């Protein structure tokens, strides 16, 4: 009974919405990249990088907005590098993604040791604080008051609008569905792929930033596969911003449940809940639960 009441509480709901934030930033970012036809499995690495740079510059400068901007800029540079690899040089996207993940993992471990003299974590810093005004709004204010989470929810509508209602979205999607046809019609296909990857870099940066800010520090391995869960959410969400949002909510509900179970000390093994997101993704891909289809030219160089 204790367990059920703690799951049905407002705190639980708050937790679900909060934890959804990094997943949705990652998944939505990956979606922009894949809609342009580029598979970006280095979302994990990108989130790791931004979490680290946000923490590092936050500690050094003491200014959150400054470090936020720097972290986004660094990710932007890396995503431009990634698109140079995959779009310009046409290196296999999966291999490039694995390479970037390895490189970023090495980079952050090295800098963590070099700058903070620790192989595990940075010291604490003050993260992004909640917005007080929102707490006063009835119902919603109790659940969501984190500015990044709020932006995340706003992003659902914005991304949906960009992808389906703007010229940019149409061209981006055409680059991912049928680049030859788009090219014939005068769309600068490669340029749009670049944009898609840059958006994925910026958005995944926000995901990493949220994680570091929420924990008030950076620690080695803190992303813990969230970038891959984000990819899974994108697949289950059928490459649609709104559906992805609900997939992310489902995964964050699993994560919140896992924590609640650990605290309540029941004998339900948490490891099995941990693997649910991945298992569900495979089942969805096989077609047991719904049908899903990637953009037609996803993963192909053009």
């Amino acid at each position, binding site marked *: 009974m204790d367990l059920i009441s703690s799951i049905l509480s407002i705190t639980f709901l708050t937790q679900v919405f909060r934890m959804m934030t990094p997943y949705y930033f990652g998944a939505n970012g990956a979606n922009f990249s894949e809609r342009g036809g580029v598979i970006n499995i280095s979302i994990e690495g990108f989130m790791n990088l931004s979490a680290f740079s946000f923490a590092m510059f936050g500690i050094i400068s003491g200014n959150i907005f400054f470090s936020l901007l720097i972290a986004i800029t660094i990710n932007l540079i890396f995503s431009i590098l990634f698109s140079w*690899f995959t779009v310009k040089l046409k290196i296999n996207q999966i291999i490039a993604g694995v390479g970037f993940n390895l490189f970023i993992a090495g980079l952050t471990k090295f800098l963590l040791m070099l700058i903070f003299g620790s192989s595990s974590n940075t010291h604490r810093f003050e993260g992004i604080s909640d917005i007080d005004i929102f707490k006063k709004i009835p119902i919603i204010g109790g659940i969501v008051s984190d500015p990044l989470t709020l932006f995340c929810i706003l992003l659902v509508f914005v991304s949906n609008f960009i992808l389906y209602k703007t010229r940019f979205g149409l061209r981006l999607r055409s680059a991912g569905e049928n680049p030859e046809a788009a090219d014939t019609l005068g769309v600068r296909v490669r340029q749009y792929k670049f944009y898609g990857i840059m958006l994925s870099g910026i958005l995944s940066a926000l995901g990493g930033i949220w994680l570091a800010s929420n924990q008030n520090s950076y620690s080695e391995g803190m992303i813990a596969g969230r970038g891959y869960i984000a990819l899974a959410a994108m697949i289950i969400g059928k490459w649609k911003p709104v559906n992805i949002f609900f997939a992310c909510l489902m995964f964050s509900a699993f994560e919140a449940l896992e924590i609640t179970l650990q605290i309540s000390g029941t004998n339900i093994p948490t490891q099995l809940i941990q693997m649910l997101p991945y298992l569900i993704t495979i089942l969805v891909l096989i077609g047991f639960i719904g049908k899903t289809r990637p953009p037609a030219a996803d993963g192909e160089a053009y």
Partner: protein
Amino acid sequence: MAWLMKSKLMLNFISVALSLFTTILIVVLLLLIIGKNPVEIFSLVLSEIFGSGYGIGQVLFKATPLIICGCGIAVCFHASLFNIGAEGQLNAGSFAIALSAYYFGFLPFPILIICCTLAGFIVSGIFGLIPALIKIKKDVSEVITTIMLNFIILALINYFLVEFFAVKATMRTEKINDDDFLFKLSDYIPFFQGSSVNASFFIALAISVIFYLLIYKTTFGYKLRAVGFNQTASKYIGINTGKILLLSFFIGAGITSLVGLNYIFGYKGYYELGFSNNLGFTAIAVSLLAKNNPIGIILSSLLFAILDYGGLSVNQLVPKEIMLLIQGIIILSLLSIDKAVKIYFERKGMA
């Protein structure tokens, strides 16, 4: 045809040499920026490694799992399959090896190690079959399924360890019998005194020979490369592509499990969660650097092992994590320079 092979080999050589050179350049710059003396650090690494039998032994020891896992991944690469799931597969296999080694400890050693090898190979192989089956039946890319399986396998092992097999308050299995260990090279060659390099280094070399014979000298290998080169064309000339994909994933994943022989029979005597430390991903880099060539895999494994051990030896001067960074730089510069060289020569019409 011969000149083409030669020129391709030449191209590969040029791009690997260029990217290693670029890496060294970047690293020297990096060291200068953080105010260290590159000459001092490089000479320290070299003297620590080649100055003693212990250093060389440790490098061979660290190269062993990379060679094994690199070969496993390369089998899949030859069939144009991206096995990102080696990390999970090798953990599943090693877990099976450790458990069977403990529970069948009463068997005589030669029989025991054969049984354990088979157990590991089959368990890993089955986890390799899953993405292959999904790919064939449902046309779903193996990349996503293998990534997802990594997490599923690790969570399952975690569950089984905690609930059934782990030694209390640890995340490892029971230790195998003391007389069931593989011999250390230092038992016979005093030169390697103190280092952990053991008989599984020879197993790794044997695997790379078998890998070479399988890929380049058998009909199966020929078909596998044909499928990797052009799946549609292979189908039309009557190759059962589905069977080839299944087999190459089974064999490739199976091989990766054998890294457990080094850790369990040659080093610690038990399976421990997290022992692989991203080996499955590093081995992808090894295999790429080697262009999936067996001799190349041995050489690039040695290079990565030198970096790994070299990091420990310079830890006083510069964080050992710099070697992870160098591995990353190598892989990114190889990928980009390799492609740039190809584009350059294509424009010149030479290849």
